[in-house]
């Protein structure tokens, strides 16, 4: 089972590493993947316990930070006029962007019939759901009256008022709640056949019962598959514009306002690209260590890493396109506020953050043009980490650097996050890590039935799939 890709690649210059290592059958794929889930609780790997301990500890940091926030108020954060949006919205956008790679992998690549997605789509979808959960914390925490989140929704009440549909913030409520719902639905629907597999193969009685209930009686009937495949494609077809709309609407939160640095028409596609860029970086950040830990080299091959690196490079270039146009348009416009905004980014008090952002987001990812870098897991992981940080800095630059220089110089001020900002952010990472580790321990982290499709036995019977 440990055939390495370069052994099978042969001499053909255009041959690509396989998406599934040779020698697998539907049964071997099923056994290998379900193994991670069906092992006894007492035999849980040590690295998992260690990771979970870290995640759970950080989750408690989150609970502490939130408790403090609820008892004291928003003042514990660094937000103040003129920088009324700080770490909270930076992290909101950061998290929601990370989720987008999951939807891209599961939906868009399904529509494009890219079979290499089959092994990473489940994991990416789970990442989407958990990242949206983390993102969703921020708007609610920032409400100031976090016990009234239902006021965001257009519910009839004694106030007799409705949310303001002219505001991008209500578009956000619709977009993020739809995104969360449809992501969970897509994830769950995608998991149904695999839950049925676990129902059939779990050893413990309780596990069989739990997976059985979750599988809703799925029995791999062709009648099921017929509706199922159509529904999957439809969900993919709906998720694709959905993911574009979500980050476009997030970009509207800024761009429909008239703050210099926010108000530019290229924002929607440039935000979407940035989100996918960050999301793929996060997928790689997580998948690269999981691959040796779960011995997944057969399923996540060099082909996957190469392709993900290429998507990162592409979306990174679109982001760079956005930066270039912003700078060009500021000077072309002749608007003194726009020009000041750009110069302030270049040389103002936050210039370090700006140039670090350019280095991490634009300069370093150019290394991905080199095939040697794309196939070196260490380099790939390091670049992914750079992008994770770079994309956080991008939102910092957009939000804080634009706001801290108001039109009226008497309003100018500096901004920095407080320790509670940091604790909240680190805490959401704990939430993310906890959910993710629970997921890979108790649910099938790789899509078993779609991996069966990639086996030689199935490709022979399947026809259209390659």
């Amino acid at each position, binding site marked *: 089972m440990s055939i390495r890709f370069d052994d099978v690649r042969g001499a053909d210059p255009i041959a690509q590493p396989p998406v599934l290592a040779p020698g697998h*059958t539907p049964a071997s794929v099923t056994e290998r993947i379900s193994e991670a889930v069906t092992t006894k609780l007492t035999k849980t790997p040590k690295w998992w316990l260690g990771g979970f301990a870290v995640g759970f500890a950080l989750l408690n940091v989150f609970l502490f930070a939130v408790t403090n926030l609820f008892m004291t108020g928003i003042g514990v954060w660094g937000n103040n006029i003129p920088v009324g949006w700080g770490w909270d919205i930076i992290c909101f956008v950061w998290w929601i962007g990370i989720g987008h790679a999951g939807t891209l992998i599961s939906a868009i690549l399904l529509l494009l019939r890219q079979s290499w997605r089959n092994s990473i789509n489940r994991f990416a979808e789970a990442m989407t759901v958990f990242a949206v959960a983390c993102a969703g914390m921020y708007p609610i925490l920032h409400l100031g009256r976090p016990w009234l989140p239902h006021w965001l929704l257009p519910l009839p009440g004694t106030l007799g008022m409705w949310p303001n549909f002219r505001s991008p913030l209500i578009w956000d409520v619709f977009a993020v709640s*739809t995104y969360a719902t449809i992501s969970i639905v897509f994830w769950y629907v995608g998991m149904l056949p695999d839950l049925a597999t676990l129902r059939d193969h779990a050893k413990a009685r309780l596990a069989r019962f739990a997976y059985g209930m979750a599988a*809703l009686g799925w029995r791999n*009937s062709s009648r099921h598959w017929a509706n199922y495949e159509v529904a999957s494609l439809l969900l993919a077809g709906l998720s694709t514009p959905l993911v574009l709309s979500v980050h476009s609407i997030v970009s509207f939160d800024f761009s429909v306002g008239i703050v210099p640095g926010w108000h530019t028409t290229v924002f929607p596609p440039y935000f979407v690209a940035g989100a996918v860029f960050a999301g793929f970086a996060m997928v790689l950040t997580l998948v690269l260590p999981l691959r040796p830990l779960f011995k997944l080299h057969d399923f996540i091959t060099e082909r996957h890493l190469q392709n993900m690196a290429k998507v990162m490079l592409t979306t990174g270039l679109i982001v760079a396109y956005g930066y270039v146009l912003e700078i060009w348009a500021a000077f072309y416009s002749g608007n003194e506020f726009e020009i000041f905004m750009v110069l302030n980014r270049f040389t103002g008090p936050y210039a370090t953050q700006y140039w670090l952002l350019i280095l991490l987001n634009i300069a370093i990812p150019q290394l991905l043009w080199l095939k040697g870098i794309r196939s070196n897991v260490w380099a790939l992981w390091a670049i992914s980490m750079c992008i994770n940080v770079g994309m956080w800095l991008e939102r910092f630059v957009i939000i804080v650097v634009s706001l801290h220089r108001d039109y009226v110089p008497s309003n100018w001020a500096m901004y920095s996050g407080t320790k509670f900002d940091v604790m909240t952010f680190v805490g959401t990472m704990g939430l993310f890590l906890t959910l993710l580790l629970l997921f890979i321990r108790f649910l099938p982290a790789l899509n078993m039935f779609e991996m069966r499709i990639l086996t030689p036995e199935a490709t022979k019977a399947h026809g259209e799939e390659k």
Partner: protein
Amino acid sequence: MHGTHPEPSLHGVLAEFRTPDELLAAIESARAAGYTKLDAYTPYPIEKVLDALDLHHSKVPLLTLGAAIFGAVAVFSFAYWASAIDYPLNIGGRPLNSWPAFIPATFEGAVFHGGLAAALGMLVLNGLPRPHHPVFEVKRFVEHASKDGYFLLVEAEDPQFDVSAVRRLLEGLGPVEVNDLEN
């Protein structure tokens, strides 16, 4: 079910095959013999099996389209009604009917309803949730249907159904085993 005629309580006859090709051949034989109420069980969707069973008429797309249109119309009408009729309020000098600003929520409404309709429609049309089903009584089905077994079911509802004839047909196709399924 002692003492009564076995057929009314019979769900069908289930045969297991080793490969997709054997299953496809079995489907063809069964169809050639005139059986119409057939179902196959495969560990992953197989286009050719769906073709052979003529299963390409899903109603899920229609449901999804209907729900998406409903969602779009509902959200836009609501936004219009809330902003222009029920509580008209001048916000930033924008018109009461700020239709350009209603479009994002309208779009999300379409996707929300369409997506839920696709998922729920799939479940309902598949008769799920249904935790138990006669096929689960077969030990090898539970062990292999979601791994590496390819099963063909001839249902008792079939107008031509006759247990012994069906068994004879299936046993002649080289199955791993053949089982009668009781309701």
